């Protein structure tokens, strides 16, 4: 009995200690603006979670080093409290709750992936905490009427829009025949909706419309159909697994299509894992280092990429770039609001209209960024088998000319 009492006292003492010490960590302490973020540092999104965290950290250091944030005549610095959401939406929602109600965070950065952002958004909305997120592109995030959610990236339904438009343009303005295969998850299905819109707009016809089960590892049936009907464009989206499987099986089955467009080539390290087989694939990307957008903190894409590589030892994927951009948006909003009042910061965020190295940022009513088009790059390989991603569309940003149609396998 005695031991039990001692344990109870001990535990409650620690609990009290914790609760008091944690609550004192409010949003702005001294000269620090504390942001909260739940990020997937373990679990299935951990690679991209780390890219996100690296992007955030790099921007925090850069902004702090370059003079910080000026609010009300005083200079502040950014600091971030991170929690690991284990790639689990339930956990992410709990952590958001904890960041806000226990840690007293009043401004949030987004997690990685649409699914986790969807889990957190209702919580930040409930507490009126402005959240700038950089990795949730699902269209459904922006149709719920959230007032405190801002996304620096283009919504998922625009990912492969450019590809269809380019194909139609190359076809002399006439509609094209599209074959598409999308995984059955929120993101890929949003990409699919975008293609359906684009097809209707351009008078194109969808002749294969496969929905791949999540646990599917094999696209042989879809590709056999593609071989039989010979479409003008093949569109595939199924995260990294979809991209890797598609390239492997297209090469193995010698499927000839004039245009192949997909998502997640970056994350799949397509050209590294598949080498020349990935050549000519068109990939949707939120950002590419050769784009010529500029800002005062990171200068431009190439400088950002070089600095990032120096710090973390790898070429930044777009997930890192957009995460860095989120902090630039926050800094800008704080300075324009000239206050830490959540409502005022929210209104300032809604009025954002700026250029960053990552692209122009201007939020629509729903919170999505409408001022930044998606870019398409094409995997291009030299004779030695060294492959590079080159931006080919939209034309304004292109650094290489689109190779179209893709040469037949028998001629490669």
């Amino acid at each position, binding site marked *: 009995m005695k031991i039990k009492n001692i344990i109870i006292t001990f535990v409650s003492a620690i609990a009290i200690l914790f609760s008091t010490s944690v609550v004192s960590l409010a949003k702005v302490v001294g000269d620090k603006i504390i942001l909260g973020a739940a990020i997937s540092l*373990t*679990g*299935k*999104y*951990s*690679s*991209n979670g780390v890219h996100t965290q690296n992007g955030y950290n790099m921007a925090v250091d850069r902004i702090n080093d370059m003079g910080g944030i000026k609010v009300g005549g005083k200079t502040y610095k950014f600091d971030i409290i991170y929690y690991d959401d284990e*790639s689990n939406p339930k956990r992410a929602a709990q952590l958001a709750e904890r960041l806000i109600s226990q840690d007293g965070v009043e401004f949030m950065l987004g997690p990685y992936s649409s699914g986790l952002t969807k889990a957190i958004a209702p919580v930040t909305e409930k507490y009126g905490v402005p959240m700038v997120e950089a990795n949730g592109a699902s269209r459904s995030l922006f149709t719920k009427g959230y007032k405190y959610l801002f996304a620096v990236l283009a919504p998922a339904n625009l990912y492969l829009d450019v590809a269809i438009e380019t194909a139609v343009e190359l076809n002399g303005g006439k509609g094209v025949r599209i074959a598409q*295969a999308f995984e*059955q998850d929120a993101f890929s299905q949003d990409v699919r909706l975008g293609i359906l819109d684009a097809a209707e707009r351009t008078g194109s016809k969808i002749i294969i419309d*496969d*929905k*791949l*089960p999540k*646990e*599917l*590892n*094999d696209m*042989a*049936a*879809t590709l*056999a*159909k593609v*071989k*039989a*009907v010979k479409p003008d464009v093949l569109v595939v989206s199924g*995260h*990294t*697994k979809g991209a*890797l*499987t598609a390239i*492997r*099986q297209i090469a*193995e*089955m*010698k499927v000839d299509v004039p245009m192949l467009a997909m998502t997640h080539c970056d994350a*799949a*390290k397509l050209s590294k*894992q*598949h*080498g020349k087989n990935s050549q000519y694939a068109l990939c949707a990307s939120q950002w590419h280092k050769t784009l010529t957008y500029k800002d005062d903190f990171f200068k431009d894409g190439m400088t950002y990429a070089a600095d990032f590589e120096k710090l973390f030892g790898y070429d930044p994927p777009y997930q890192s770039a957009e995460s860095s951009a989120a902090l630039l948006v926050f800094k800008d909003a704080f300075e324009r609001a000239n206050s830490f009042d959540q409502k005022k910061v929210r209104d300032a965020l809604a009025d954002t209209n700026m250029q960053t190295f990552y692209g122009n940022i201007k939020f629509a009513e729903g919170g999505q960024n409408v001022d930044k088009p998606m870019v398409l790059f094409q995997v291009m390989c030299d004779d030695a088998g060294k492959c590079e991603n080159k931006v080919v569309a939209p034309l304004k940003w292109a650094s290489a000319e689109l190779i179209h149609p893709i040469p037949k396998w028998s001629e490669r």
Partner: protein
Amino acid sequence: MDFLIFQVPMLTLQAVLDGLLLGVLFALIAYGMALQWGVMNIINIAQGDLVILGGYIAYFMYLYGIHPAWGVIISPIIMYFVGVIIYKLVINKVVDRDLFISILATFGISILFMQLMNFAFGADVVLANSGYGTTMLFDNSVTLPNSKIFSAFISIVFAIGLVIYMKKSKLGRAIRATAQNARAAKILGVDTEKVYAATFGINAALCGVAGALISITFTIHPYMGLPYTIRSFMIVIVAGLGNLPGVAMSGMGLGVFEEFADYILGTEFRIGSVFLLLVLILVYRRFKLSRKREYLK
């Protein structure tokens, strides 16, 4: 209705061949599951995770410049010991308990393996390139990746090897005796503990082979194990316990069925239709069984 598969006759052949090649590989995983289910009465939820671990062994060989096809030899050797260790640490404590406890235990192992693999190998989807090329039939209208043919061939070799081993070797006979009646086998001098450990090891080794083949033909990822567990479970259910030739047949049958479901019903109903088939088979079995019982009355 104008189904593409009936308009283009070559697609039928393609679907049958794709289904068979896929089915044989799944049947190999199911083989291991049927074996240890029959012998130890354990449903191994971690089956798929053992497969993925085997795949990572081949993948790492590939990374270090060894051709991943050697994985079908190295991977089962390593996985055999992994299996024996798992048996000694966990499975031997649940082997005589009821099925529910063994499911819980192997479910735990499955989660542990997933997280450990994620921790050790990272969350990226990876694959190993065999560079085997493609076999083209009928003027390029039917294409079969050689890696898939290789997988199917290796699976068949291991499956036949296992059957012969079970029939001829001393350990094989001991395993079969234990499966029939563990108590009687024990009384007659069979070291059932050893038999159980070997059975679990052999199962893990088969998973290792399958994993190496999957890294060559498909992709691997730490969290991709469960679909393989479910698939092998279904194959065993359809075949019935202790029916090794049946496992091979049902594996290939399900593979072909799935391909046709894809063409006729649509890709989104592919997995669903396999489950529907499973339900129908179970209902049919029950129906047959109840008639038999009435007859006995």
